[in-house]
């Protein structure tokens, strides 16, 4: 029987109501104690071989007959007005099929053309023109033949500068406020108060696969291959921009080379490719190169933060005040830096004030735990300073102020094992058993800790189908995406476990709207917690049908039958038949089970947690900083696959190290031009930069999240890495660094007490 249920769903800390349509009875929850045989085991990725042998087909691999290449001409200025533009020479180049600028963009035939092609460009990398050509090099040659004259306008890229300008009030968004308790009273009660300022840099996603789409039309049906975290978001945007019904659009993202938050919808490259393909009657491919990727697809926001924390002499925190500036670029959103300040500690009096500042840089976008990474660096650095002032062990201070209920809503957690995580991490890093600081000539080694909190409980709507085919093979149909996290593998495990069929017999289809099975975007660490239960429910439905069929064919009561390892067993343990025999004998019938993600339980706060410990080595004569060890202990509910869990943690921790040590967009403060939009100058960690990472977990039973007892793991591993490193560095050199990233020169200057001379190149 179909039932419609309204339920609260969270995405990265923002809540909304969703309807979900559920069938059947709720399933008994799984837990680490359920005796599962396939879930919880380290299954290698089902698509690993395809990926390493190159047979996995990514958007970048899609080349269609007669395909046309689209390339954008982008603004070299951060702010300018186009006074003259002449594309005639480019249009005349043999092989060029069209050139579009703000003057003729409307003829491309999509809604937002005038928003993509503008006369006034407002960041470096903003679109000036589009060339369509029969091959890529002709397209590039044509770009050089477009004559553009610009009148440069003064760019504003530095939020601190903008806050001081009377003329730029319209660039300030907010304040976004949060308040609980009585802040003044909280500080009045405090015996010790620390006040600290921090700066964090803009970080670029640098997905291995750059943003791109290939579009073609089959009659009046549009097919778009695109590298995306949400095929449905792309489809609805295309429908709106092109004015065609959604059911005429198919969006495919079979394999995907990373998104990290930057690929949540259709980009201009997607819409323009689709519109141009319609116009030309040929497939159109627009794939960004690395420089475009780093100039024009968004970033983690640069922030300036001020934190004040008050505590009693015994360490109890009485008040937390956070003020923050968020550089949102042209028109990004104000990521919630305040998450950790509001949620980490049991503290009655908290205030958060956030201002977004609009600048002549590309709009910021979501990036792996947006806001929380930046906010946790400030909060957990300040808490470490508080511990020093109180003469307390920083770990003890954290345990003392441990929140046992969600401090924002006062609801219970669905589960929380952060305390166990802290203790396990402390054991692994030798927090108590080894000296905290070791000197060896010019080198000093030291340890630091930070905690992290995030979301990742998932929710509806998420639907799946599980087909058991006539030969006993299983097809799981969903339209979720595997953005590299191992979704395919985890869903196959869940289906196999529930069905009682072998893991190797399951094939997972995903990343294709043609299934019409609604699924959420792959973000917010939610894919498994949303899709997993839907797949389990569908598998359960399929299993029921199989047992029903077997019961009728063999005239045995359904209750006396079970499925194990591909066969149907009687209650006395004897084999009735194999699933393949059963369906094969029915004229190759295949069973289709349907499943929905069940509604969220009311009254529980679902959060994920991590305790992260770093051991660093500093060369005090050069300022070189190495992270020797990073122990990352997670509470993410039940772990479905320890191998893919490990990959997520290693990847997140490495990205966190990059943020702490190397990565950062450098912008010329005068011209607003990005100095390092390439992988030579924007430093993403390489294997040999990375020390030993120990990913591990505590596995609480969680009967309140979903029918699997799982929570997310995609984002948590990045959050506490920078503050753990910052705190270890502070321990090592006796000076606190308050600005990321910790480049050798900054560490050196801090050790020597040198004030670095201001330069025009800034981390913005």
């Amino acid at each position, binding site marked *: 029987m179909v039932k419609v249920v309204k339920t609260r769903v969270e995405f990265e800390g923002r809540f909304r109501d969703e309807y979900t349509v559920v069938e059947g009875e709720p399933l008994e929850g799984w837990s680490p104690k359920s005796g599962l045989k396939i879930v919880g085991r380290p299954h290698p990725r089902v698509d690993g071989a395809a990926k390493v042998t190159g047979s996995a087909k990514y958007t970048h691999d899609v080349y269609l007959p007669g395909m046309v290449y689209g390339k954008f001409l982008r603004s070299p200025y951060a702010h300018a007005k186009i006074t003259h533009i002449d594309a005639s020479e480019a249009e005349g180049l043999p092989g060029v099929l069209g050139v579009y600028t703000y003057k003729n963009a409307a003829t491309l035939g999509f809604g937002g053309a005038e928003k993509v092609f503008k006369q006034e460009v407002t960041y470096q990398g903003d679109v000036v023109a589009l060339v369509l050509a029969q091959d890529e090099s002709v397209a590039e040659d044509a770009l050089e033949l477009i004559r553009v004259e610009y009148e440069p306008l003064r760019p504003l890229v530095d939020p601190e500068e903008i806050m001081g300008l009377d003329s730029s009030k319209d660039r300030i968004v907010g304040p976004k406020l949060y308040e609980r308790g009585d802040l003044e009273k909280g500080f009045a009660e405090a015996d010790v108060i620390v006040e600290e300022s921090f700066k964090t840099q803009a970080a670029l996603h640098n997905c291995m696969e750059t943003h791109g789409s290939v579009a073609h039309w089959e009659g009046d049906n549009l097919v778009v291959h695109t590298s995306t975290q949400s095929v449905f978001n792309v489809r609805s945007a295309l429908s709106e921009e092109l004015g065609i019904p959604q059911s005429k659009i198919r969006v495919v993202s079979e394999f995907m080379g990373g998104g990290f938050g930057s690929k949540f919808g259709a980009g201009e490259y997607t819409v323009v490719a689709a519109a141009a393909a319609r116009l030309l009657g040929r497939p159109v491919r627009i794939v960004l190169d690395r420089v475009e990727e780093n100039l024009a697809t968004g970033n983690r926001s640069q922030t300036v933060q001020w934190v004040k924390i008050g505590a009693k002499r015994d360490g109890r925190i009485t008040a937390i005040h956070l003020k923050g500036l968020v550089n949102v670029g042209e028109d990004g959103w104000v990521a919630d830096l305040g998450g950790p300040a509001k949620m980490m500690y049991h503290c009655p009096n908290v205030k958060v004030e956030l201002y977004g500042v609009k600048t002549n840089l590309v709009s910021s976008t979501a990036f792996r735990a947006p806001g929380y990474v930046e906010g946790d660096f400030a909060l957990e650095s300040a808490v470490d300073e508080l511990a020093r002032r109180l003469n307390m062990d920083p770990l003890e201070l954290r345990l003392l102020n441990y929140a046992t209920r969600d401090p924002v809503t006062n609801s219970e957690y669905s589960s929380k094992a952060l305390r166990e995580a802290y203790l396990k991490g402390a054991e692994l890093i030798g927090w108590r058993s080894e000296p905290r600081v070791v000197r060896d000539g010019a080198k000093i080694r030291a340890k630091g800790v930070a905690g992290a909190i995030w979301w990742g409980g998932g929710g509806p709507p998420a639907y799946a189908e599980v087909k058991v085919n006539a030969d006993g093979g299983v097809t799981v149909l969903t339209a979720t995406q595997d953005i590299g996290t191992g979704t395919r593998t985890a869903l196959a495990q869940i289906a196999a476990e529930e069905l009682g069929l072998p893991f190797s017999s399951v094939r997972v289809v995903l990343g294709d709207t043609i299934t019409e099975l609604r699924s959420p975007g792959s973000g917010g660490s939610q894919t498994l917690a949303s899709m997993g239960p839907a797949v389990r429910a569908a598998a359960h439905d399929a299993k029921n049908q199989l047992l029903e069929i077997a019961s009728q064919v063999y005239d045995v009561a359904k209750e006396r039958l079970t499925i194990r390892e591909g066969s149907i067993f009687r209650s006395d343990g004897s084999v009735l038949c194999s699933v393949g025999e059963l369906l094969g004998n029915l004229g190759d019938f295949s069973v289709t089970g349907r499943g929905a993600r069940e509604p969220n339980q009311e009254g529980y706060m679902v959060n994920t947690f991590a305790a992260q410990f770093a051991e660093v080595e500093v060369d005090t004569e*050069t300022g070189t900083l190495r992270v020797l060890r990073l122990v990352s202990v997670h509470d993410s509910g039940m772990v479905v696959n320890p191998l893919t869990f490990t990959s997520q943690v290693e990847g997140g921790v490495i990205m966190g190290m990059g943020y702490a040590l190397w990565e950062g967009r450098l912008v010329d403060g005068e011209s607003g031009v990005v100095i390092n939009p390439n992988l030579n100058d924007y430093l993403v960690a*390489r294997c040999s930069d990375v020390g030993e990472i120990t990913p591990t977990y505590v596995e609480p039973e969680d009967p309140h999240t979903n029918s699997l007892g799982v929570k997310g793991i995609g984002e948590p591993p990045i959050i506490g890495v920078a503050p753990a490193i910052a705190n270890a560095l502070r321990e090592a050199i006796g000076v606190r660094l308050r600005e990321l990233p910790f480049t050798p020169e900054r560490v050196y200057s801090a050790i020597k007490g040198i004030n670095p*001379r201001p330069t025009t190149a800034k981390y913005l």
Partner: protein
Amino acid sequence: MFVIPDRFSYTVAHSVEEAVELLHTLEDSKVLAGGQSLIPFMKLGYASPKSLVDINRIPNLDYLDDSGESLKIGALTRISRLCDSELVAKDYPLIHDAALQIADPLVRNLGTFGGNVCHADMGDDLPAVCLAMNAEMVASGPSGQRVLAAKDFFVDRFTTLLASDELLTEVRIPKNRRGCGGAYLKLERRVGDYAIVGVAAQLEVDGDGVCRSVGIGLTSASTKPIKASEAESWLVGKSLSDEVLDKASTLAMNTSNPLSDIRGPAEYKKAMVKVLTHRALKLAYKRARGGL
């Protein structure tokens, strides 16, 4: 935004003579060795030669030969070969140190010794090695062969003494005797990056530990690879105490004239020349005295 180079012709040379002939006759020609510097330059539009002469198929230009008076390194010797060679690891630790710190395995598999020195960027590591070891550079051109001293070879950033129709065929390194030792230290922002600064030091000491001869080459310490000549002259004839090394590193620092750039401000780089020179000399000394 530009990933496709301008049009160019491509010709394969099968001998040194043919290569020289092609370089001489083809318009605006350049040698293509491992392509690890030239191709990125062409992609980025920093270089747009009209003709490329590929020397990769010239036989017998890839060798390490220490049978004679010096260690002879063929211009096409891949950097990975320097990393893997036992001879280099045992007898020429300076070269070995440097090779291991150049880029990453992929680049080292293709990049050549000749290409690295002919590119002559301030950030390439092997020019400093050649300067410290007082190497000789052997070139072939239309009018025959000539031998150039490393200290004269590096004229400016991206500019060597080679004429456009000359091919570097070999680099000769004085043989390491007893009492010789060398070391290369490199400060990097991230593994595989070009140096913030790098220091190559090569020493010869007598039985009493007195410095007989010394070479110091600096990477990224000026707009071109440079030799720390004052530090070198000051060290000769002295016992290498900490104070002596300190004075020498200060002299090396004073010789340096680095640029402020994305790898750090000039003042920081200068300070690092001093730290690294001190450490490199110390390690070279230890090796010269038979330690590791």
